[in-house]
C-alpha cells in the first residue's frame, strides 16, 4: 500500500515512483485535476517521482497559473520544452521539500506557502465549511458536485492559491506532510 491514487498508472520501487504514461496538465478539467492530485500525494509521501508530460501539453495552458504547481515534482526534461517547464524545474530544485504543505490539527489545518519566495504565507483553516471543503477536494472533484456553500469555499481556497480550479474541476494543492525532512526545522 503506497497511499497513491490508483487513477494514475504507476510503479513504486523503494522511495521512487515511475509513472507509466504521459500525464496531462494543460487545463483539461478532470485529467489535470487527477494529475495534480497524484503528484501532490507523491510529494506528500516524500517520493522521488519520474513522470512525463503529454507531448502537446503546456502546464496551465490558458486555464491557470502554472506557478501554482511549483511545489510538485516537475516532469522529466525533454528537448525544446517550454519555458514554463524549465522555470518549474528550477524552482522545485531550489526548494524540493516544504515549499507548500499542510498539517492537520484538531478542528483546524495549517498551511505554509513559500511559492513566492522570499515572502511566505501562513494560513490557519478553521471555519467548518472551509475544512469540509478542503477535505472534499483532496480528491479531484467536479464543481457541479459541490453545494453552493462548498463552491464558495472552493473560491476562497482558489483565491489563496490553495486549490486549483480549472475547466469545472477542483483539487487541493498543499500536500499533507507525512514525512518530515531532516532537519525538520528547515521548512
Amino acid at each position, binding site marked *: 500500500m503506497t497511499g497513491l491514487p490508483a487513477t494514475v498508472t504507476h510503479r513504486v520501487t523503494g522511495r521512487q515512483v515511475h509513472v507509466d504514461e504521459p500525464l496531462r496538465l494543460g487545463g483539461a478539467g478532470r485529467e489535470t485535476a487527477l494529475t495534480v492530485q497524484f503528484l501532490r500525494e507523491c510529494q506528500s509521501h516524500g517520493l522521488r517521482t519520474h513522470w512525463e508530460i503529454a507531448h502537446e501539453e503546456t502546464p496551465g495552458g490558458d486555464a491557470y497559473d502554472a506557478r501554482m504547481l511549483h511545489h510538485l515534482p516537475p516532469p522529466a526534461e525533454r528537448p525544446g520544452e517550454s519555458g514554463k517547464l524549465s522555470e518549474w524545474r528550477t524552482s522545485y530544485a531550489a526548494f524540493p521539500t516544504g515549499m507548500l504543505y499542510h498539517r492537520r490539527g*484538531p478542528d483546524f489545518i495549517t498551511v505554509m506557502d513559500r511559492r513566492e519566495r522570499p515572502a511566505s504565507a501562513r494560513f490557519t483553516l478553521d471555519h467548518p465549511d472551509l475544512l469540509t471543503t478542503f477535505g472534499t477536494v483532496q480528491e479531484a472533484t467536479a464543481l457541479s458536485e459541490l453545494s453552493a456553500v462548498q463552491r464558495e469555499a472552493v473560491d476562497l481556497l482558489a483565491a489563496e492559491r490553495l486549490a486549483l480550479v480549472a475547466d469545472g474541476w477542483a483539487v487541493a494543492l498543499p500536500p499533507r506532510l507525512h514525512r518530515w525532512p531532516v532537519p525538520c*526545522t528547515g521548512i
Partner: protein
Amino acid sequence: MRVQLVTMPWHPIDLPSLQVGLLHRLLQQVRSDDEVREFHGSLRWAEFLLERSGGWLRPGDYEAIGSDSIFDGLGDWVFSGALYEDENWGVARLKEYAASRGICTDTASDMRVHAAEFIVECAAEVLAQEPDVVGFTSTFMQNVPSLALARELKRCRPDLTVVFGGSNCDGPMGHALHRNHPFVDLVVRGEGEYAFPALLRHLDAGTQPADVPGLCWWDGRTPRVNTQSRRTVAPADIPAPDYDQWQAALEASPVLEYVYPKLVVEGARGCWWGEKHHCTFCGLNGSSMAFRAKTGAQLWSEIDHLVRRHRILDVVTVDNIIDMAYFKDFLPLAVESGWDLRMHYEVKSNLTREQIALLGQAGAVLIQPGIESLSNRVLDLMDKGVSGARNVRTLRECENHSLTCTWNYLYGFPGETVEDYAPVVDQLPALVHLQPPGGAHRIQLERFSPNFTDPGFGFGKRRPAEMYQHVYDLPEVELTDLVYLFDTEDAGIGGQAESRLKRAVGDWRDGHPGSSLVMEEAEPQEGVDVLLVHDQRHGWPRRTHRLTGWQAVALRRLEDGRTEPALHRLLTGDGHDVPAGELNVWIQQAQAMGLLFRDGRTYVSLPTWEVPVRIDSDPADHAADRQAADRQAADRQAADRQAAAG
C-alpha cells in the same frame, strides 16, 4: 495587587516563556483577585531593533546573539552599558576579548547603541500598568537586560517591589545577584510555585518574608538569605501554562512574519538518570535533581488544550530527560490524535528501535539524545550510562524514522587519552551517512556539575569565565558566586588528537549531505537470503554489496550491536554453522568496508533501511543569507553616499 511578569531578552522570540505562563496561571488559581499582566520584553526588543534600525537588525540577528553567543556573553554585554549608565562600559574589555578569540562583535555593537533607549521605553510601558510588583524571570543571558530594566523601574518608582527568579537565581547565584544589586528587592531561589505566592502574602500583610524558603530579601540595608528548601514542587502543583497574553502580543507584532511560533510544555523536572549517576559535566538541573513527572494523560491533556486554544502544532518540551513511562501513557495518545505535531524532546540515548519508531509516529521528530561521544571509555568517564555502539545505533535509527537528531561531540574529560579517540576517529568516515554532530567542543565547567562541586574530578583550579569581565562590574569574589560558567585548566586530549577530532567531525559534516548507505532485502535465491547494501557515502567507492546466507543474517543481527561470540551463538541458533575463524574474517572485512562500527568488543551494523528527505539548511540560514545580501546592498549604498558626498 497588580503583578507584572517580565521576560527580557534573550528569551527566544518564537517561544512563550514557560515561567511567565506557569506563574500567571498559578496566580489566577491561588490569588484570583490579583491582576496579572505580562511584559514580553524579548519580543519588544526584537521589534525595537527592527524599527530603530530601519529593518537592518532583524529577528535573525536577535536569534544569532541570543543563541550563539552564550559562551561569550554578547547578549549581556549589549545591555551592560545601560545597566551601568555608561555607554563605554565594557567596550574596551570586549574588544580585547574578541580580538584574542577571533569573535565578530559587529552585530552586538550595532544593537548596543539602542539598549539604553529601549530600557527607558520598557520602564515607561511597564509602569503604565501601575504594577505593585514586577517579577523577572532570568535564564542564561537575561540577567543584565533584566537588571538594567529593574534599575530603571526603581529609579522611576522607588516604592515598586522588584522580584527576580529563574535558573540564574538558583543557589549562591541568587544570593550574589541580590546582595550586589540593591534595586532588586527580592530573589526567589529555586522553584517558584510555592515561594512566589508566599512572598506575595507577606507583601500584602507588610510582614518580613523570613519564612519563605530560599528567599533573599532586605532587612533595611542588610541582605538576608533564607535557607533553600530541599522540598520540591509536586507535579500536581505545577499548573498548565497560560499563553494567551503571549499569543496576543506576538500576533500584533511585526516579528510574527519572521518566526514560526511554538508552544512550550513541561512534563517533568529533574533527571532520573542524574539521581543515580550524575553526568560529570552537566549542571543543567541546578540544585534540584529530583525527578518528578506529570502523568502522560495530564501532559497530553495540557498539550491538547494548548494546541486547540492557540492553533499551533509545534511543541517544545523543556524536560531534561523524557519520562520512560511516556512511551506507554503519553506518546500513544499523540499517535492516536492523528495530528501532525512537530515536537522537540530530550531523551536518553539508549532507546530501543521500537521506542525511536514510536517517537517518530507521535510527532517527536526533533530529538536531543545526549549522545556526547562514541567512545565507550569516555562515556564511562562522564558516567553517561550508554555505550558508543548504542549511540551509533541511535543515530542509525534516527535515519530510519526521519528524526532530526541534534548532538555535539564533547571532549576534555579528565582521564581520557589519545587511545580512547584514535579508534573512533578512524571510523568516523564510515558514519558519514548518519547525522553529524553540530561540532566537537571541549566541555565547559558548569556550576552544579560534579566536575564543579568536586575538585577531585580534576578541575580544582577555576575562576569565573573570562567573558564575565565585559558583562559585570563586580569583583571576582562576587562573580564566583554569581555566574554559571568557569574557566579551568584543560583536561583530557589536546594538541594533535584534539585537532584530528575536530577535523574528522568537520569532514563528517561536509560529507554528510549527499551520503547514504542503505540496504534492501532482495528476493531469496534458492532459499538463501539476499541483502543488498547500496553504498553512496562521501569518500567511499560507489558500489552495491551483495550479502547472502549467513552473512546477510549476520549484518541484520548486528543491527542491535553484538560481540563476536554473541553473534556466533545467534547464528548457530539460526541454523548457520559458521566456523568461528570464518566469522572473524567476515567481521574484519565488513568493518574495513565501513559496514560495521566497532566499539570495544561490540560491533553494530551501519546501513539504514531508509534515507530521510534531507534539506540543506535551516530557515535561519536562509535568513542569514538574505541578511548578508541585504548588508552588502546597504554597504554599497553607504559607499555610494560617501562617494557622492566626497
